[in-house]
């Protein structure tokens, strides 16, 4: 997978204001929270989580169109760039690794992103690790499960549409936990363990890197 040099991300900001890009340096806070702690997946399993930890390695924002945004109303049209995600110019970054308890009821501050003003259109999240536990219930059968996965994947081309032109806003990242479990068949869970390359294991590996599981929104501070 393509990996940008996050430690030396070349954010294209002019050293002096008033050059042809018109960009200004800016910072904004990013907070993280999980949503859909309880959900019913495509296969009819009702998932109730008791633990959902996510370790993010870093986060970056780009001007390139999102990889998939089939139904994002904000963008007005649907994009697909299979194999050809064009991230464009890097606009902001947040480099600190951090682990989030996605079951907390309040958003947690991730940190302050450094970047430039501009038309933000996509984001990339480095998903390093997830730890999940809970129950899945279907047709009167309840399966208890635990799973810890080292993912190490950049989830790129995530839809994010915002004009960042002021220092007064912040960005919400909401992680839709229902997307992670959408295709998991818990009938194959053995003794609470998701065996490697079993169906639910594969489904979770696909789910946690699903771009539609990461929801970004820019909010202006009143």
């Amino acid at each position, binding site marked *: 997978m393509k990996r940008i040099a996050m430690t030396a991300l070349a954010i294209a900001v002019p050293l002096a204001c008033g050059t042809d890009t018109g960009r200004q340096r800016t910072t904004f806070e990013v907070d993280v929270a999980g949503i859909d702690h309880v959900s019913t997946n495509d296969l009819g399993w009702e998932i109730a989580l008791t633990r959902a930890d996510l370790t993010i390695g870093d986060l970056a924002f780009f001007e390139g169109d999102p990889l*998939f945004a*089939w139904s994002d109303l904000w963008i007005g*049209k649907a*994009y697909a760039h*299979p*194999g050809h995600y064009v991230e464009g110019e890097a606009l902001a970054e947040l480099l600190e690794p951090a682990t989030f308890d996605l079951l907390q009821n309040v958003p947690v501050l991730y940190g302050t992103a450094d970047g430039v003003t501009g038309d933000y259109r996509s984001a990339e999240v480095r998903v390093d690790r997830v730890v999940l536990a809970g129950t899945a219930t279907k047709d009167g059968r309840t399966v208890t499960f635990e799973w810890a996965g080292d993912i190490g994947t950049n989830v790129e081309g995530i839809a994010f549409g915002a004009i960042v032109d002021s220092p007064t806003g912040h960005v919400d990242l909401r992680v839709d936990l229902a997307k992670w479990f959408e295709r998991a068949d818990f009938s194959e869970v053995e003794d609470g363990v998701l065996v490697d*390359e079993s169906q639910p294991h594969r489904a979770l590996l*696909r789910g946690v890197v699903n771009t539609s599981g990461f929801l970004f929104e820019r909010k202006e501070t009143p």
Partner: protein
Amino acid sequence: MKRVVLILPLIAACGGTGTIEVNVYGEDFIEQEIPAASAPGEEGLVDGFTVEYDKFLVALAGLEIANRDDEVAALDESLRIWDVKKPGPHAVAQIEAPAERWDRVSVEMRRASGATAGNADPADVDMMNAGGHTVIATGRVSNETDTYTFDWRFDTETLYADCVDADERPGVNVPTGGTVPMQLTIHGDHLFYDDLQSDDPSLRFAAMAAADTNNDFEVTLEELAAVDLTSLPSDQYGTGGDPEVNDLSAFVTALTRTLVHFQGEGHCVQIKR
């Protein structure tokens, strides 16, 4: 060769005019074969299969050549069927345009309805129109022991916009008094990609061969639809999170949105219609 409607009055060109010669081309992968990779990292299918297309029909329309000032040099709305299995490149249009960089090129893969032949046989044009298809790909996939056939018909409509060449240069630069080629390159290997997101996907067929559950050695889209992606190894057929792609049929259908490239290895923004 078709001459398309010239929108911008040539009198507007202070620097003279030149010619854009548009063609469509299936390259060796469609015209000849997609080989089995001879070694890891080499070009071809990684699981020992070889693909040979019999037909590769595409319905193209809405070729537009414009600039960032929204001046349009040419707009060709005719819907035509091209069989890029036939040896090419195939001439699409010859356009006289003011000599400058025309940096906004787009073309649509549009469902056939009343389409006419580009270079396709009349019976194939009828087949595309009758089914309202955008792409029909037929052929054979073989390894040392087996040969599978396929006849895949797709209806996915895609606008390919803001095309850039392999060096990220947008559109074409028309020289004064000269000619510049402009190629719509059809990448037939993409139907065998094993990832919708990766910059460097592998080509493979084994999972598709295994989908032939009635053992007739024809792999149909219906059989591919029965293969949930979660039944396949987690390092294959990654979707990058496309929420609409959960089985192999949806996967290969999604790949049809990547078929049209620009000037060989250049690419366009792909917009779902």
